[in-house]
């Protein structure tokens, strides 16, 4: 699709209606009776108001286009029995008009409201329309013979406003439509219906490569969207020169997909020359990933690791013959263009990773982490071509919600981080946890097995997703890359899941992988890497005709899996999937030739050597160095009003409640939840981690937690990494996980790695992953990196903060001993476990004071792993009533959160806080230091607030022996947080109701927030 973005001025009716072009289909338009309210219309009105358009009223309408082959009575019957609700809805039906003919009488523009129609661009999937077509077929309400049962859906808004048509059109384009996938029509404009897509030529297409010069090779890569650099293009050229023939389009595309950063991780697995910050001799690193992250896992050699870094997901042993598998993916660039579709297909894709893990796993939980721009960013600070951060966050939340909820997978853990540098390049991390019987942990591909695709059909959606995600976004990305956007259909994927579990248990296939980036080319290429494969492209079922051979081959159309099926099992497999209304089609077979052979209608369109495809890519040499920014250490500047500071911290976007997001996710479906994302008496406490009970027959729990703090990476990527590992693990321990049955996942989102400093930070981060994994004895089992997260406007390059998300998956030995962070009982003792130091670099206290610099928190690797285990032991021995980790906002925020979640008060004495170097010792390097602020707001790692019943005091202290801890006070019945400073006087006292008000102050809070 290369239509211009619809930000172009729209025709301003009624003049356009005189053109004579009318909508050639029945229009059924449904709106809600006034007395039942119209939340969608209200929301639309608010969106317009944000853009300065004053409206008297906005009414939302759902539109359906039906074949002109229907008679009026049938359309009324369809509308009445299938489309509209007799109680809630009102219907308007407009008959089709001939393409050219007398214009319908234009409505009186003086009185009638404006109408804005939002339609999908031709070729963009429309799952609701497909559902309606199916329903019409099943209920035999079909149009007259000779006309197609073709349905399209759209949204409309009827808007009462004094604003001019032109201005309204401009605002509507911003507020309602995403130009990448949608077009706008106004008032009486005809609506497009049944538009044929441009057709491409099928068959063998050769690309003139062998005689191309350097400039031509680069141009070929750029124009073809191949994202290959000159060295790589030359390697391909050499290969085909040696073969004495030109490559075909299919071959070139296959190589581009397979060698893409997205699929190959060529930066992390390449060769790197690292100049250490201390000026020592440069170090040559051959495959950074292998030398750090993978190496830690190998050296640790933990017995619970079942399958690591080889399959679609990491697999660890669980209990009773079951394993757990987990994967976290990034879907950044598609989410920047289309937040809803991008995030939806992001979660859909990682769910498929789990479906394809081992011989097929059942997804039991999702996680999602977003890094976006500030929600109140003034429009003039939005880079050209980027969407407003509010729209991005709303879109990605809705995308994850609609996909995860419809699949019936609970979304149980996640986080949102805000920073202006994510405005144009938001980060979307989606993760899925799966459960699989251990007997299915391995898969294989045998020559002679059939290559079977199951699930959705192939269309022109998602062409070049893998290569697109490997290049930088630019201000016209949305026009160039619209075909990289895919629309998800979660029910199609749910049907695949249902059929897959049955086929797996019956042993109907041996090999499986998901169709993700690169489509068939990557899926078949990977599965057949060791043996070879032959594919007949004409056998792939298509959504519509007109795709070129290479388009079929690399399309990233969603909801498809590829299976390796023994021929004798084929019939039964097809039958199983047919029962679920899922197509299963043979598209080829695995061979023993070591070649990837592609035919289309009998014509040879590609023949590649598997070895060249997978091993032939030149390995780039990266230069890496690291110079930390030079900044003064502001120490811990004095705070004169701690009550106000705590209030401000609780309102900080990174800290305040995410309830408005969390409650839109179903976190209860499947009935496995033990510790929920929101906890406490009123369900408003931010839980540290989620815990599920995967099996009825086992008391063990699966705990998912995460850690990230991009603010720390600015000055010290190594400290950021260790702090993120520490945070993920301490979150897990807080709910009752065993740190000795825990593993980690790394997800990098980095800027431009051709910049040595950026690459240097990546090297330091990867090395710190190794050190952290070794120190905590927690192996990495899976990971994913997304590089080149930069955004160019004109000559300016915007780079995102170096972002590392660490996800921890851990096992809780007994769910009955799991914990929540809400205060439980008056009179219980409150301990601070862990040592506080002047670690204010990147802290929210300094952020609030608009200060930079300072020492970034870094866990003490000698002590932290032991401390985590000691606390886990104390929890396992049931001496702990609640535990909460200290992170953003330090002790002050953690204490406030425990109070509001438990609806109890706390009395704390800061003089008791264990401080590094002993009480009264000024922290090294800090100029100014307010001892109270230091204790309240420092973000030192490996610290917890722990509630202990008086009767368990001795046992608790015994468990913690040898580690720093101190009793700070008691739980009070009166709901007030009272803090005494180091000098012995009361520093501040806050009502818990006030703390709750601050914490729940999000402007996007749920519409009628509970009265507090």
């Amino acid at each position: 699709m290369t239509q211009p973005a619809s930000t172009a001025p729209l025709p301003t009716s009624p003049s356009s209606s005189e053109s004579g072009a009318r909508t050639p289909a029945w229009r059924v338009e449904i709106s809600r009776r006034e007395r039942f309210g119209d939340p969608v219309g209200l929301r639309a009105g608010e969106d317009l108001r944000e853009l300065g358009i004053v409206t008297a009223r906005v009414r939302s309408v759902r539109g359906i286009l039906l074949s002109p082959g229907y008679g009026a009575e049938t359309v009324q019957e369809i509308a009445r029995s299938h489309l509209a609700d007799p109680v809630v809805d009102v219907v308007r039906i407009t008959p089709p008009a001939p393409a050219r003919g007398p214009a319908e009488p234009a409505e009186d523009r003086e009185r009638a409201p404006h109408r804005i129609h939002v339609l999908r661009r031709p070729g963009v999937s429309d799952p609701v329309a497909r559902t309606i077509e199916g329903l019409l077929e099943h209920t035999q309400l079909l149009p007259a013979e000779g006309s197609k049962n073709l349905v399209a859906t759209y949204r409309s808004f009827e808007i009462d406003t004094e604003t001019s048509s032109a201005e309204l059109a401009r605002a509507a384009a911003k507020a309602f439509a995403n130009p990448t996938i949608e077009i706008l029509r106004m008032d009486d404009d005809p609506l497009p219906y049944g538009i044929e897509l441009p057709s491409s030529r099928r068959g063998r297409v050769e690309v003139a490569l062998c005689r191309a010069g350097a400039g031509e090779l680069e141009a070929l890569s750029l124009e073809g969207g191949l994202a290959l650099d000159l060295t790589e293009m030359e390697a391909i050229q050499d290969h085909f020169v040696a073969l004495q023939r030109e490559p075909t389009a299919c071959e070139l595309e296959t190589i581009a997909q397979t060698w893409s950063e997205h699929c190959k991780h060529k930066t992390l697995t390449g060769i790197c020359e690292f100049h250490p910050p201390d000026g020592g001799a440069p170090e040559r690193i051959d495959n950074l990933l292998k030398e750090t992250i993978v190496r830690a896992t190998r050296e640790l050699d933990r017995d619970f690791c079942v399958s690591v870094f080889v399959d679609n997901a990491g697999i660890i042993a669980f209990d009773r013959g079951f394993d757990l598998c987990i994967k976290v993916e990034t879907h950044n660039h598609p989410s920047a263009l289309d937040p809803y579709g991008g995030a939806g297909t992001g979660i859909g894709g990682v769910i498929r990773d789990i479906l394809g893990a081992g011989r097929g796993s059942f997804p039991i939980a999702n996680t999602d982490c977003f890094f976006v721009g500030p929600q109140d960013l003034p429009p003039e600070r939005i880079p050209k071509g980027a969407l407003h951060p509010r729209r991005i966050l709303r879109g990605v939340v809705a995308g994850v919600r609609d996909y995860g909820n419809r699949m019936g997978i609970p979304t149980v853990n996640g986080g949102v981080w805000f920073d202006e540098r994510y405005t144009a390049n938001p980060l979307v991390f989606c993760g899925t946890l799966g459960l699989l019987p251990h007997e299915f942990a391995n898969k294989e591909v045998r020559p002679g097995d059939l290559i079977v695709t199951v699930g959705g059909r192939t269309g022109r959606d998602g062409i070049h997703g893998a290569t697109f995600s490997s290049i930088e976004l630019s201000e016209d990305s949305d026009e160039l890359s619209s075909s990289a956007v895919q629309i998800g259909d979660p029910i199609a994927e749910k049907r695949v899941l249902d059929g897959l579990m049955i086929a797996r248990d019956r042993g109907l296939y041996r090999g499986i992988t998901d169709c993700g980036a690169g489509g068939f080319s990557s899926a078949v290429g990977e599965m057949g890497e060791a043996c070879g494969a032959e594919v007949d492209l004409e056998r792939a079922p298509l959504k519509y005709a007109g795709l070129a051979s290479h388009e079929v081959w690399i399309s990233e159309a969603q909801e498809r899996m590829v299976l390796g099926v023994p021929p004798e099992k084929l019939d039964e497999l097809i039958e199983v999937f047919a029962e679920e209304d899922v197509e299963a089609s043979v598209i080829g077979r695995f061979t023993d030739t070591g070649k990837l052979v592609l035919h289309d209608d009998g014509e040879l369109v590609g023949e590649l050597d598997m070895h060249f495809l997978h091993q032939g890519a030149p390995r780039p040499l990266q230069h890496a160095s690291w110079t930390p920014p030079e900044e003064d250490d502001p120490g811990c500047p004095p705070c004169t009003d701690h009550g106000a500071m705590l209030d401000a911290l609780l309102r900080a976007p990174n800290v305040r409640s995410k309830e408005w997001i969390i409650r839109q996710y179903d976190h209860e479906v499947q009935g496995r939840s033990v510790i929920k994302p929101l906890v406490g008496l009123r369900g408003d406490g931010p839980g540290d981690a989620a815990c599920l009970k995967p099996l009825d027959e086992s008391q063990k729990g699966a705990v998912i937690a995460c850690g990230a703090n991009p603010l720390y990476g600015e000055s010290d990527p190594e400290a950021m990494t260790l702090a993120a590992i520490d945070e993920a693990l301490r979150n897990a321990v807080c709910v009752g996980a065993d740190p000795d049955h825990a593993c980690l996942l790394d997800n990098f989102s980095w800027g431009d790695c051709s910049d040595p400093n950026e690459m240097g930070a990546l090297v330091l981060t990867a090395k710190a992953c190794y050190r952290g994994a070794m120190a905590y004895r927690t192996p990495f089992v899976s990971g994913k990196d997304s590089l080149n997260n930069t955004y160019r406007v004109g000559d300016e390059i915007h780079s995102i903060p170096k972002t590392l998300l660490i996800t921890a998956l851990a096992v809780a030995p007994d769910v009955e001993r799991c914990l929540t962070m809400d205060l439980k009982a008056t009179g219980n003792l409150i301990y601070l476990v862990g040592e506080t130091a002047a670690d204010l670099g990147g802290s929210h206290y300094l952020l609030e004071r608009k200060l930079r610099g300072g020492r970034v928190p870094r866990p003490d690797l000698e002590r932290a792993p032991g401390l985590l285990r000691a606390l886990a032991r104390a929890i396992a021995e049931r001496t702990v009533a609640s535990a909460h980790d200290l992170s953003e906002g330090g002790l002050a925020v953690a204490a406030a959160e425990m109070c509001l979640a438990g609806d109890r008060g706390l009395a704390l004495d800061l003089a008791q806080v264990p401080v590094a170097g002993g009480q009264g010792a000024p922290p090294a390097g800090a100029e100014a230091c307010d001892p109270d602020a230091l204790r309240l707001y420092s973000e030192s790692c490996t610290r917890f607030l722990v509630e202990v019943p008086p009767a368990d005091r001795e046992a608790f202290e015994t468990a913690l022996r040898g580690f720093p801890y101190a009793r700070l006070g008691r739980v009070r019945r009166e709901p007030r947080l009272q803090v005494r400073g180091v000098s012995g006087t009361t520093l501040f006292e806050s009502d818990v109701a006030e703390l709750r008000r601050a914490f729940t102050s999000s402007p996007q809070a749920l519409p009628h927030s509970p009265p507090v």
Partner: protein
Amino acid sequence: MRSATATDVRALVLRSAGTNCDGETVAALRNVGADCRLAHLNAIERDPSRLADTDILVLAGGFSYGDDIAAGRVFAREIAHRLGDPLRAHIERGGLLLGICNGFQILLELGLLQDPGFTPSERGIALTANASGRFECRWVTLRLHECAAEWVHSQELLDTPVAHAEGRFVARDLDVVQELIDRRQVAFTYADPNAPSISTGPSHQEALSYPLNPNGSVANIAGITDPSGRIVGLMPHPERNRTPWNHPHWTRPDLDRRHRGEGLGLFRRMVAFVERERISRPS
């Protein structure tokens, strides 16, 4: 999970594309001793006799057909066109029919919760978009009323999650609501756990505020029965309060242990009701 003594009560959970609460619903029925099977719409259409010996037919929660057009609409039309006869036979035989969440929406779309014999387009009640305009997942407290479905009632309030976007119970007018009350069709209402003093009968006078009434339902209605008491639908998910670790307050020492997993009580009473009826009315 403890399993109750097995009974010979036979339950069948019907699923289709997008049904996604089938696992926990089957587990809940088995936990209380029912012989519970799971079957796809296509399988029942091919072999309708599989419905013939079923005592309890359950439509589980989910997003059948993506909730496209309206929640439950497409599955309801598919059932009406493809399983119409066996379903009618099940109802005429006196079999029970339970719809949870999406299943409740399907029952309403099928028109099975009002007078028998009327067409779906004459329906006077509906489940529509939440007052908040969005999907919401949270725990609520339910009152279980004395109603035409006698197995529903309990003295105890019941805590369960709700998780839906279209669960707001609405009626054409208040007369329709009064008629439901008069015919003892109101089975479940959202309740305030801290105000046990309010009258126990359903009424459209006492509207609870959000989030006690999570979606703006008229008369706080969370679920109803048909006039005969054989067909029951509700939006909340009792099958998600199935284990002692599901309740959001189970980690608190102040939670009465009786509330842990108490969603099973509802299924237990339903199965016991079928057994009792068998004894009094041997077939």
